[in-house]
């Protein structure tokens, strides 16, 4: 029992890391209609900014808040001066541009701060609390809670606010949105800025666990994309559930399904994506696109 609970809880904790990044992906997609492969790199850059501030003696929480603010500006500037040139064109081109941006940012981080692992202090203590025969670290609980709050805020933004509605309108049809008087350019900048903010939070949550390196988010991004596909591009709620599902199922499958084991557990999100896309192409919680002829 203890082992099962431990594996389950650890899965949720790992899943939360994927979820943080997945949320940022959803936000960019919901406000611009594209998928930002550079999201992981941007999160790493934000984490480096926070880390660099702490080395200058700035308290951790303040450093993270400054990096969050800086990330908003960075996201908005990237949209304004780079991505805008590709937003109306072929979505495949835009995706390739974001992949290029990822490579660029990773290289920049390595050049500025070397590729050596940096220790990033954790917001939450590593102390553990017992729970049904398992021990859960306060850091896992903290990460889990932050993701939960971020998910609810994002869900509320899209479904309950004018800004969220405007962001979605711009993503779905920028031309009609412009005709309706919406400031499309500014909204796109806000969308990217907010996504960078989510990335910054994700970076600060993940860096203590993975230790800060320019490539820190590379593997996590693969899982985050899996969560986005699985949960549905349009649903913050869906991608978080999907990310948790991937984390938990991966752990349980490795231990309890003998032919999967630790060698094949990387295939778990793969199989899940395949099954889900066959049955529900829009993802578990995504909205179905309807084309009126």
């Amino acid at each position: 029992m203890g082992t099962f609970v431990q594996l389950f809880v650890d899965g949720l904790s790992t899943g939360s890391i994927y979820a943080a990044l997945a949320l940022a992906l959803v936000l960019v997609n919901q406000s611009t209609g594209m998928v930002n492969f550079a999201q992981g790199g941007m999160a790493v850059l934000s984490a480096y900014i926070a880390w660099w501030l702490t080395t200058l003696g700035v308290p951790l929480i303040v450093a993270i808040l400054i990096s969050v603010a800086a990330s908003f500006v960075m996201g908005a500037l990237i949209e304004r001066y780079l991505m805008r040139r590709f937003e109306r064109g072929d979505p495949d081109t835009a995706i390739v541009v974001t992949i290029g941006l990822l490579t660029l940012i990773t290289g920049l981080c390595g050049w500025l701060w070397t590729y050596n692992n940096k220790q990033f202090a954790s917001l939450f203590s590593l102390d553990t609390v017992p729970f049904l025969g398992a021990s859960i670290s306060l850091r896992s609980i903290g990460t889990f809670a932050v993701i939960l709050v971020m998910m609810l805020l994002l869900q509320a933004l899209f479904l309950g606010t004018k800004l969220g509605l405007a962001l979605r309108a711009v993503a779905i049809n920028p031309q009609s949105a412009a005709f309706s008087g919406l400031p499309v350019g500014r909204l796109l900048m806000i969308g990217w800025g907010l996504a960078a903010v989510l990335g910054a939070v994700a970076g600060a949550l993940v860096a203590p666990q993975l230790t800060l390196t320019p490539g820190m988010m590379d593997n996590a991004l693969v899982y985050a994309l899996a969560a986005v596909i699985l949960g549905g591009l349009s649903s913050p709620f869906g991608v978080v559930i999907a990310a948790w599902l991937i984390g938990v199922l991966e752990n349980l499958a490795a231990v309890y399904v003998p032919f999967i084991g630790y060698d094949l557990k990387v295939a778990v999100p793969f199989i899940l994506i395949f099954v889900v896309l066959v049955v529900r192409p829009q993802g578990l919680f995504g909205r179905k696109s309807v084309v009126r002829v």
Partner: protein
Amino acid sequence: MRRTARNTLGAVAVASVVALALAGCARGGGGDNGDGNTATASPGITDTTLTIGITTPLSGATAGPGTCTVAGAKAYFGAKNAAGGIKFGDGKTREIKIDALDDGYDPQKAKANYDQLKDKVFAMGIGLGTPTNRAWREAAIADKVPQVLVETGDPIFSNKADSPWQLGFVPTYMNEGEAFGKLLAASGANHKVAVLSQNDDYGEGYVEGFKKGIEGASNITITKELTYEATDTSVDAQLTELAATDADVFFNAMSITPLVISALQKAQQLNWKPSWFLPSNTSSPKAILEPGKATAFPGIYSVAFSKAVASPAYADDEDVKTFLSDLKQYGDYQDVPAFPHCLWSYISGATLEQAFGKMTEPTRANFMEALRSISDFTAPLMLEGTSVNTTEDGQPAVSSVVVQKYNGKGYDTVQSFG
């Protein structure tokens, strides 16, 4: 516009599947066939200079240790060049130049780097990485280009029949694993061992060596053996399973720095406090044990053949002082290195100098002969009880290791377990 959204979803799905597949493939090594070009002359050497080529990761996840390999070699030869150069066996004094390229731990790039350098340099080597060094091994054999003192514990590089133009530098994975096994078996007390290893040659070699070391010892039981993939973001599940076996010794053959740190933390959270055995390349006190809060465990053991330069115990050591100042001045590396690789390539430099001193003609073949005739050479920075010996077929230049125990700051050499 709806179609755009669907296209995007499709593109993302395809890209994700590709990314996942790549993540899965990335863990394999890869052999590559050479182009069969035979070089009879020896490029890269003149009466006044000799150039050594290095391909090593200078970017990506392994860039930390990778940059260290170049810095250490540059530090050694930089200091020698400044002092007038290195005296060769043919009576000439030459300056040593280093031409280093980044392979990002990517086998394809390593092979491309080799192709780029092979006609410009006299010999190649010193770089780290098993899959990357394997990628150009066959081409180097076909072209008769020395591939020497490579930083990988893969035994293939030290087997003369398979690898006539190669020589490994660091102890093989088996050498290291066996040293742990022997120490544990010799303790006489009963021990239960949990094993976690990387699912590749690296992990397998360690476990094989360990099992050889405990062969016939009735006091050692292995409770459980698990593996992980080098691309995994977490090994929490494995630790949970291993902790449940209540083993008092944890043999952890891991090469991924962040995973070792998180493993140390996770074991503490699970309240599992065994003694640890850690490979030499992932047991750095500053980079791994301190952030992992390793003092919580009764003992962290590792093996080494070089001095722990970051340890206060060596602060006044002459070798260490010279090394650190050379590293700063000629290696362009300002920090005290967190990785042993800087030291290893510095020792490689000293080993190469020995070989150069024995060379009677400026050819690659003569160099290989000279390189294979160094016995019991104690290079700077080497620990007592270890030495460079290139005369034994099947063994790398350094095959002797001593087991060490973490003392909270650095390592002390130990004779017995416990």
